[in-house]
């Protein structure tokens, strides 16, 4: 999933300050799962903002809504009913959702309420970790199902570097060395011979190197 974290309250208060009526829009997808911008977080943030401005003697009006998917024009259309009644939108979706709202409602200011972080997985309750950088040319088949692009601090494709210590990355003892994980996994699979196959330099055109990316499926495109 795409993970996100709510922005600091101070920053949110300042971006809302010039407006009287706010539409606080959550998303029912990834940000709900990572507890950053779902229905529950929308409710909590709305209350916190109202309290803040009430205390300042400048009460604001906040309309709460949580869309099924903010990155999908079909659902973003649902904001039509509220959009003219507000001065600005504060979106709790990931960056994709924020941009979809901005694209559809051209004359309405839209602000992000969360910082979009990474594509990751849940390690345990309340902990998410990066797993994928969307490089567009997946190497997981060569690396035992552990991604060196996303999980090695130096994105080394022929690792590990000389800083791997007790299974941890030199950058942080909280981070597993991706190449230790790859080695362990190849060993478990009986595929250690694969380790010595040098992985060639990556063609980053499939990733950000080629500019903004797009998928066009002729069979589905209308």
């Amino acid at each position, binding site marked *: 999933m795409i993970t996100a974290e709510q922005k600091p309250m101070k920053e949110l208060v300042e971006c809302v300050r010039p407006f009287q009526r706010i539409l606080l829009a959550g998303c029912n997808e990834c940000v709900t799962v990572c507890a950053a911008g779902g229905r529950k977080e929308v409710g909590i943030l709305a209350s916190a903002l109202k309290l803040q401005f009430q205390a300042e003697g400048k009460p604001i009006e906040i309309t709460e809504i949580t869309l099924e998917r903010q990155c999908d024009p079909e659902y973003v259309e649902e904001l039509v009913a509220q959009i003219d009644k507000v001065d600005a939108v504060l979106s709790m979706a990931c960056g994709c959702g924020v941009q979809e709202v901005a694209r559809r409602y051209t004359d309405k200011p839209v602000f992000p309420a969360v910082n979009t972080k990474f594509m990751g997985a849940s390690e345990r309750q309340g902990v998410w970790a990066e797993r994928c950088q969307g490089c567009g040319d997946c190497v997981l088949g060569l690396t035992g199902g552990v991604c060196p692009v996303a999980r090695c*601090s*130096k*994105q*080394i*494709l*022929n*690792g*590990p*570097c*000389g*800083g*791997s*210590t*007790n*299974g941890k990355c*030199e*950058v942080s003892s909280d981070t597993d*060395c991706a190449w*230790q994980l790859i*080695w362990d996994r190849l060993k478990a699979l009986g595929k*250690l011979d694969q*380790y*010595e196959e*040098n*992985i*060639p*330099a*990556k063609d*980053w055109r499939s990733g950000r190197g080629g500019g903004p990316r797009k998928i066009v499926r002729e069979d589905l495109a209308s």
Partner: protein
Amino acid sequence: MKTDSILEKILASGQLAVTSECGPPRGALPDKVREKAQLLKGYVDAVNVTDNQTAMVRMSSLAACILIKQMGITPLLQMVTRDRNRLAMQSDIIGAYSHGIDTMLCLSGDHPSFGDHPMAANVHDIDSVQFVEMVTTMRDQGKFQGGEKIDGPPKMFVGAAANPFADPFELRVSRLAKKVKAGADFIQTQCIYNIDKFEKWMEGVRERGLHEKVYIMAGITPMKSVGMAKYMKNKVPGMDVPDDVIKRLAGVPKEKQAEEGIKMCVEDIQRLKEVKGVSGFHIMAIEWEQKVPEIMERAGLLPRPQF
């Protein structure tokens, strides 16, 4: 011979080669480079010039290499994948060779989080294995990494690093094999303090016959004090400083620790000379270059061969 590198000539002759290191200054102070290099002149075969080591901004390795070359000393250009993409790296390699720099070391580099620009993007377009392959392809096939022909290929003698002490130990010979497969001509190892472990690694290297495909230069750094030894043990990633080393330094008075450090380093060199497959030494006397002549003398590594 693949190149005109003096280092290649010495290694190919079967004599022990010795390199040392010079870290460029943190400012536009060419005399600082010259002062350090002068201390090493005539005592070692080539001087490694580090590339923004510990991820701190310094005078570029290439610029400092040129200054050193002008003094009649052979510079060894270090380059890391952290700060440049493959376009910038290849243009610097051609540029270096145009200035007569024909020996280099391909590294990934310390992560930016260790340096004074932790906010910088880390490039890592290619890794150190791919880097070695890129430079040997430039030399042997006369082609850029992108496939186009080079008009005047740089004939670099190509080195890489190996750290026998990083984890997991069991893959460290295989990792070396990857660099050999990529075409590395010589290896400079991480500083060796745990000689038993190094010997065990070399056993694995010899079992695979890798010492016959690549020249292995043993990394040596003299300890200045027990404080430095403790710092290296606890703070430097991938460094293996056994307790015995710390005990021995702690066992002598503070003012004698530097001398003890030199003595230990000379003993280590003597012992490592006996390890089959060791082709030379890389003496990294960090901010202590003036001690290199003494270490060389006491280790019986002088005079240096002439070509």
